[in-house]
C-alpha cells in the first residue's frame, strides 16, 4: 500500500476528516486512520522488499497525513474550527432557516412541544414528514 497506493494514507486522513462531521463515529474513524497509518509505516520503512518504489512523494504524503491524523487526535476542536473556516458554510452548522425555531432534538420534552404545536394549529391541515437527515 505504501509504495503502490499512497492513497491509503489519504484514506487515513479522509477518515479523520470525516470524523469531524460524523461525531458519533469519531472513535472508529480515528482507529481506522491509525491502523492505516501504522500499516503504511510498516510497509514504507520496515518491509522494504515489498516497497520497490518508495518515492519522496509517497513519504511526503505519509507524513502529511500522519500529521493531520495526529492533529485531529490531539486538537480536534482546533482542526474542526480550521475546517469550518475553510469549507462551505453550512457543513458544520445546524441552523434552521431564518424565522423558524432552531433545530431541536426530539425527546420527551420536545415531543410534548411538537404535540402542543400540532394542537395549536388545529384549524389547519398538518403535515408530518419523516425524512433522512442526509
Amino acid at each position, binding site marked *: 500500500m505504501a509504495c503502490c497506493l499512497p492513497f491509503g494514507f489519504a484514506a487515513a486522513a479522509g477518515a479523520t476528516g470525516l470524523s469531524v462531521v460524523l461525531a458519533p463515529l469519531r472513535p472508529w474513524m480515528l482507529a481506522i486512520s491509525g491502523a492505516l497509518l501504522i500499516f503504511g509505516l510498516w510497509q514504507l520503512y520496515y518491509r522494504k522488499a515489498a516497497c520497490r518504489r518508495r518515492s519522496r512523494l509517497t513519504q511526503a504524503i505519509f507524513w502529511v497525513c500522519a500529521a493531520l491524523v495526529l492533529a485531529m487526535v490531539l486538537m480536534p476542536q482546533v482542526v474542526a474550527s480550521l475546517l469550518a473556516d475553510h469549507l462551505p458554510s453550512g457543513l458544520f452548522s445546524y441552523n434552521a432557516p431564518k424565522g*423558524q425555531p432552531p433545530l431541536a432534538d426530539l425527546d420527551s420534552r420536545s415531543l410534548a412541544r411538537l404535540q402542543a404545536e400540532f394542537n395549536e394549529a388545529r384549524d389547519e391541515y398538518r403535515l408530518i414528514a419523516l425524512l433522512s*437527515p*442526509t
Partner: protein
Amino acid sequence: MLATDLGAPTSLVLQRLKDLRVRQYWDPGHSLAQRLSADAQPAQPKQHCCEQKGILWDLAAVYPPGELWTDRVPAAVYFDGPVVKQQAGLEEALQPEKP
C-alpha cells in the same frame, strides 16, 4: 435509516425547507416514528412502504383540521411514502374539503 444517517441535519439540509410554518426536529431515537406506528388507527390508510425493523421512515402523514393529538396521535387522512413520490397524493390530501 440510511447508512449515512449518523448525525443531525446540517444547515445545508435544513435550509431546504424554508417555509416559516415548518418545524424541524432531529429524532435520533426514532421516537416520533415509533409513536406514529404505535398510534396507527384502523381509520388511517396503511402505508405501502417505509418500514424497516418496525420503524417508519421516509413517510408523510397529513392530519385534517379539527383533529387533536391527545393521548394518541389522531388518524391521518394520508399516510404513505417515500416522500419524494408523494407530491400528487399530498396535494390532493391537502385540498380543502368541498362542501
